């Protein structure tokens, strides 16, 4: 890829940059293959503003006779304006930005070029592996085994090369089960609850179809999961009606007759276009500074974003209750098993497992339940709320997860080892990043593109001693208890830190956070 082909005008002087929290700046604008650089020399000091082109969601240009204004709307919701002298320059710059901000080929993207001095490509990539995770969990080893049936991704292209399945189920069986599940996503273990030996499994929908096909191997596998316990729950993230209708297109659900020991619960979680529209409406409401409270509340309600947060947390709470209070294993799936399924399983783990609430543990959870589990990040995060592009597979499922985690952290301020800045950082990185972590749609694609060898790992970077301080929660107090969130509407709030990040409002709150940090550090130092 020859980037310079797409850059007709690389430098323009006397450009004025307008951005939140700063007065307008005049300086030189520079376009590179991956960035916009703006440098301003004011007397002795010089300031540099760097913007990753990938972060740009939409670009609006208003050319006039001798100049033009470009408005850049970013995926992290920041809005910037550039006043560029010279109409031709303005149009050229706009064109370059349009092209370079939506590169399709993974190896053209910035993480493959990012080479900071302090990091080495030889550093460890990723936090852990399925083998390491399995080895650490001794309690489950007598009933569960690590299978390498997917080691070349041929059985399930979106799964990692190693998965945890019941001991009694051999690889041949797994192959047959994979053929019966959408996308080959056969049921695998994602969480083992130490307190009572119950587990959370996840998968995609069974391909029963209109003819109500059965798969003995699938039934065997599920039977092996609840062996000894007698009953299991299936949480289907589709409504009953949607599950029934799925049969018409080759999908379906686990019927009572074939899976008699499993009780099915339906909780409809939205996904795909509905979620993306919800985000778009919410961002639009936040950008509307009209001074009517009624309009604001009605727009907020209309976006339904908080309703999605509500449903996600409620379903996760239900899942956690089944495991801890009822004492039964649970299988969770939707249609594809790559969105709502992962959302609910990760939130349930945060509720139940204190180990996922430390900084390391949380990143490890994300690695297992989202990256290795095959959430299609590239498709989902191609565009955010401002984009004018025709939407295809975009959906802010991961942002919804971060919002739900934020709600949990707000309700239990001492329970999380990480703080809001981490969630905000992740919300940005997932759309545009210097790191390779969120590239591609599955582990297979990442391996094929050489992501692990040729880019840097975000999670490893965040855990570095120089960084982790910033992302840790000074109020953290480890506890062995589960944390049960309140899902009453009064308890759920708009995540102002994310959606109103670029307003003056946020600045005061940040100051307060800093004050809080200093206080706690003082106290800890004194005691």
């Amino acid at each position: 890829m020859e980037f310079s082909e797409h850059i007709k005008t690389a430098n323009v002087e006397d450009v004025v940059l307008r951005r939140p929290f700063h007065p307008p700046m005049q300086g030189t604008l520079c376009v590179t293959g991956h960035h916009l650089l703006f440098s301003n020399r004011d007397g002795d000091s010089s300031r540099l503003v760097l913007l990753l082109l990938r972060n740009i969601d939409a670009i609006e240009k208003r050319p006039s006779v001798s100049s033009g204004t470009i408005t850049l709307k970013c995926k992290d919701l920041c809005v910037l304006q550039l006043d560029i002298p010279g109409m031709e320059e303005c149009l050229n710059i706009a064109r370059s930005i349009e092209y370079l901000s939506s590169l399709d080929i993974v190896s053209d993207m910035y993480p493959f070029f990012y080479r900071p001095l302090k990091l080495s490509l030889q550093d460890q990539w990723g936090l852990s592996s399925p083998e390491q995770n399995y080895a650490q969990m001794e309690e489950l080893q007598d009933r569960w085994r690590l299978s390498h049936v997917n080691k070349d991704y041929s059985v399930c292209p979106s799964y990692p090369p190693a998965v945890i399945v019941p001991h009694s189920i051999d690889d041949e069986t797994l192959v047959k089960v994979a053929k019966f599940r959408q996308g080959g996503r056969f049921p695998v273990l994602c969480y083992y609850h130490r307190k009572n030996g119950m587990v959370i499994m996840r998968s995609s929908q069974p391909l029963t179809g209109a003819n109500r096909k059965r798969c003995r191997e699938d039934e065997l596998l599920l039977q092996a999961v609840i062996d000894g316990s007698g009953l299991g729950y299936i949480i289907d993230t589709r409504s009953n009606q949607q599950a029934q209708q799925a049969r018409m297109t080759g999908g379906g659900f686990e019927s009572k007759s074939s899976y008699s020991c499993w009780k099915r619960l339906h909780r409809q979680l939205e996904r795909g276009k509905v979620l993306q529209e919800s985000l778009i409406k919410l961002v639009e409401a936040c950008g509307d500074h009209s001074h009517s409270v009624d309009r604001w509340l009605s727009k907020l309600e209309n976006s339904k974003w908080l309703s999605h947060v509500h449903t996600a947390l409620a379903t996760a709470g239900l899942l956690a209750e089944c495991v801890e209070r009822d004492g039964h294993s649970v299988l969770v799936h939707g249609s594809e098993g790559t969105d709502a399924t992962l959302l609910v399983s990760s939130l349930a783990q945060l509720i139940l497992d204190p180990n996922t609430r430390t900084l390391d543990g949380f990143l490890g959870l994300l690695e297992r339940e989202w990256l290795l589990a095959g959430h299609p990040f590239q498709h989902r995060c191609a565009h955010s709320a401002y984009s004018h592009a025709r939407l295809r597979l975009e959906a802010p499922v991961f942002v919804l997860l971060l919002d739900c985690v934020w709600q949990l952290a707000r309700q239990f301020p001492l329970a999380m080892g990480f703080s809001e800045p981490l969630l905000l950082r992740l919300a940005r990185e997932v759309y545009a990043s210097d790191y390779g972590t969120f590239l591609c749609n599955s582990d297979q694609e990442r391996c094929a593109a050489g992501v692990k060898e040729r880019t840097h790992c975000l999670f490893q970077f965040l855990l570095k001693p120089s960084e982790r301080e910033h992302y840790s929660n000074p109020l953290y107090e480890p506890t062995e208890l589960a944390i049960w969130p309140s899902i009453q509407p009064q308890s759920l709030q708009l995540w102002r830190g994310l959606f109103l990040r670029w307003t003056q409002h946020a600045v005061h709150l940040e100051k307060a956070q800093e004050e809080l940090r200093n206080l706690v550090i003082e106290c800890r130092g004194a005691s």
Partner: protein
Amino acid sequence: MMEHIRTPKVENVRLIDRTAPRKAMVGTLYLSATHTIFVENNPETRRETWVLHSMVASVERPPTTPSGSHLVVHTKNFQVVQLLIPQERDAMDVQASLARLSRPEKYSELYCLSINPNANKEEREESWSFLDLQADYRRMGVPNNLWVSTPANSEYRVCDTYPSELFVPKSATPPVIVGSSKFRSRGRLPVLTYFHQDTLAAICRCSQPLSGFSARSQEDEQMLEAIMKSNPGSDYIYVVDTRPKLNAMANRAAGKGYENEDHYANIKLQFIGIENIHVMRNSQQKISDVGELKTPSMGDFLWGLESSGWLKHIKAVLDAGVFIAKAVAEEGISVVVHCSDGWDRTAQACSVASVLLEPYYRTMKGLMLLIERDWVSFGHKFSHRYNHLEGDPKEVSPVIDQFLECVWQLSEQFPCAFEFNERFLVQLHRHVYSCQYGNFLGNSQKERRDMGLRERTHSLWPQLWKDRAQYANPLYRADHTQTQGILRPNTTPYCFK
């Protein structure tokens, strides 16, 4: 009081936790002269739940079920206590007793006046001198060569709902004072409530002029002119009418209204549009209903919030304060604030403005003083508004509640700027209704003097101060940028929680 208690004790009562209805506590219910007390049977914990009679807003008895009779007690601070009483007769007795006990007919039935005034006499007298209103005026720099104290109301003869100590412009002579008060609803003439030393601008408050369609008063016009002149930095003043313009206009038909810009030289009239006490009462009822929905969806909740209009009203009050604060501090222009009678919306607007302008009012003592001045001394009708005695339900309205909520919203926007925390505000709110202390009894300073409250009750303020460790905001730093100077809140709707 004891004569109103039909049944002092009922056994085998269940206290139902509305969030976990299957887990009910079994115990004994007691009715004393001042409280309802539920004591759990469990010998290990013997947990007690106390509800002060004056905090009870309503007692409902839904239809009897096979398991017994329910009583649902709603308190004025939004607590809901649900009891299950086995015998219907007992439930009826408790309901009737509580209904009477929570609606006292005389002040002497109230908690603060039912104590022995001679017990802790010294402590009691001292408690009333804990706050010194005059000292706060001096802190503001008043009296000075622009503003003086007038003895005209020392016996409440000019205005019986105003304090006895009034500050007026130096050039306002007694005839002007008296004449102006005759031209104002309830005699509530324009007087000083806040003086901003940096710009020499002032906030004055009053009630609506009795102008009707064409009436004029030379003295009242002179009063406003004197106020303007006492700010050497500006040649006009704002007159802020906190009502919606339509309502203000309607008042003219009743011989009242607002200042005609043609008659009063150098004034700029500004309508803010805060709704009246009836609208606010309904709004609060609606929002409290939303809070009690059994399993609301997110949509139900947001829709209920919107249709109550509550946040809209809070924003209106805050916007009023912002306008006044800006005028005084940034433009250096004095402001005269009024509504109809000048004791509800006027109090809200002036006190919110003071909180924005003055860091001192963001401290615990400062807020207490502010309430003591703008609300208590200036004749806000506490007993009527907060239903201390059985009275006219149309007079009841959550006026000071809204002020306290504005302070809370500000503290959420500026977490480092306030010395006190949310608990302080909640406690203040509670005591406005509780009548455990004498501060908020009655409807004016004169009434309190006539009732001899200082000799018969305790003041709340020293008690709050004693417990100040509980009410301290750990993020408060007196030298923080957020704490100093003027607060400039963002009142875009999304900033309200």
